């Protein structure tokens, strides 16, 4: 199972230029809205035509601008789960799924029952899409795609149309279903939780370019690229000036910092996660200290957030997040005046 993509396409405002490979796993494409994620899927499906490049799926060339190959969508054998599921409104659940089944009549009936059981759609076969809940619609659309036995399954923001309180349960159900599917899966999303849950590998896309790709956990731990850091949920990011082998000056925080890793020439930003700040009251640390001025305390569901500035004139707000329990026990009476930024928690980030 393999998919190689290397395409260029000029779009409004930027050029999509992505290169990546998937091999048998679920691969996440993470990016902000309008960065070219969905367009990439559409190019693979043959709905849109790239200006140049090459798409190869399991050894079959789907698109090759040099060889003038551009297979029609119908011949590509790709599964596509649309953001709005795109169920045919004039057809029942049974008819919708049957569209994906090409086999003969008697064969297809048993296959249909199998799929209905697998996707927990028993009893709903004769309903129309508008009679189904969002989660049921999603399962019908998945069943229809998988009935077609595609060589790659592409999911376009699969959970964005669902209510928040349903999402987590449905994600677990869908994950079970996807585990049985043997081909490649590509999942486009802007949610870091979804990629973390579904995708062992990711590609982070920014302005039409893949800025980071590889193992999801590694990229989340050490994003390297400023966009990857933001998308992985890093709240505190500052521009820097390199001042030494292991020293930088954080321009937005007005402070000099010592880093664990040596600072390369290409490093432009430094970041630290909101959980990694350590409140200090005494003189334990001499370096990597920032002061906590004008704290604001917006309350989260399970965490307390503290937003603060490091200097009177500073525009940038820093985030500190702490569990509510801990907050009540240690900090609610006495807010920290300073934070320590552990050198090993500082992430060195590049721009291009």
């Amino acid at each position, binding site marked *: 199972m393999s998919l190689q993509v290397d395409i260029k396409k000029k779009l409004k405002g930027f050029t999509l230029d992505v290169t990546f490979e998937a091999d048998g796993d679920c691969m996440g494409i993470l990016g902000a809205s309008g960065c070219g994620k969905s367009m990439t899927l*559409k190019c693979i*499906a*043959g*709905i849109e035509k790239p200006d140049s490049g090459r798409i190869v799926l399991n050894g079959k060339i789907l698109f090759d601008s040099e060889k003038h190959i551009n297979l*029609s*969508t*119908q*011949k*590509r*054998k*790709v*599964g*596509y789960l*649309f*953001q*709005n599921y*795109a169920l*045919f*409104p*004039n057809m029942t659940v049974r008819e919708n799924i049957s*569209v*994906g089944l*090409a086999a003969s009549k008697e064969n297809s009936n048993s296959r249909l029952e199998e799929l209905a059981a697998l996707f927990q759609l028993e009893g709903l076969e004769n309903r129309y899409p*508008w*009679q189904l809940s969002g989660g049921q619609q999603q399962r019908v659309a998945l069943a*229809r*795609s998988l009935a*077609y036995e*595609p060589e790659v399954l592409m999911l376009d923001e699969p959970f964005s149309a669902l209510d928040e309180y349903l999402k987590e349960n449905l994600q677990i159900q869908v994950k079970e279903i996807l585990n049985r599917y043997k081909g490649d899966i590509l999942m486009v999303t802007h949610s870091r939780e979804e990629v973390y849950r579904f995708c062992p590998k990711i590609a982070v896309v920014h302005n039409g370019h893949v800025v980071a790709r590889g193992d999801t956990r590694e990229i989340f731990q050490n994003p390297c690229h400023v966009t990857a850091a933001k998308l992985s949920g890093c709240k505190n990011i500052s521009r820097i000036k390199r001042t030494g082998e292991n020293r930088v000056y954080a321009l937005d925080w007005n402070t000099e910092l010592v880093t664990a890793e040596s600072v390369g020439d290409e490093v432009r930003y430094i970041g630290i996660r909101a959980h990694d700040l350590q409140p200090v009251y005494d003189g334990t640390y001499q370096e990597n200290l920032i002061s906590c001025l004008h704290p604001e305390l917006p309350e989260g569901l399970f965490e307390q957030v503290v937003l603060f500035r490091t200097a009177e004139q500073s525009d940038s707000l820093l985030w500190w997040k702490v569990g509510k329990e801990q907050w009540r026990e240690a900090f609610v009476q006495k807010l920290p005046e300073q934070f320590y930024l552990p050198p090993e928690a500082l992430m060195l980030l590049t721009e291009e």
Partner: protein
Amino acid sequence: MNWAPVIISAKTACLSILITFFIGILLAHWVVRMRSEKARMLIDGILTLPMVLPPTVMGFFLLFIFGVKRPVGKFILEFFGWKIVFTWWATVIAAVVISLPLMYRSARGAFEQVDQNLIYAGRTLGKSEWWIFWRVIMPAALPGVASGGILAFARGLGEFGATAMLAGNIAGQTQTLPLAIYSEVAAGDMEGAYGYVYILVAISFLVIFLMNYFTLKGTARGKGRKK
């Protein structure tokens, strides 16, 4: 009452709506799928023109095309031996040309409303464009297409200006209902026109009823009726 105009009009309206309906749908489908924005604007303009131009001017153009001394008319006459102008066929041509923009525009609007993802979904499931058109696009666009068809039928039935120019007003041959009403009134026989007027008014009410019915059906599906 002389029934000849009723029969002529019925025949003309039925045949012309058949032609208009299918040509209108095909043209709309073609224009919606056009890739070039400029070409689409141009074709769209040409197809809409008969709706904006006064029917007499349209009839004037049609005479230019189908007149026996004009290239097209001459060709048809010499090759097939058919004379178009001032025959019953001219009433059909006039009705088709005048009612086509209504059909085309309604169908185009309905096609444009169809969720593109449905079409893409059909393609990714390996279905032919033909299948997608008849099983996905048409069912989704049907309320709009149907009301366009009814509107075009009514317009064809009431066609006067272009018909008078191209087909003339020959009793028993090209005299449709609107022309018959005009002739009766022109001859000073108001009462002779009554029957024809009643028929057209009745059909108009039926058309309005059917239009509302289809529009309602269209929105009901869009909103997703509850069980």
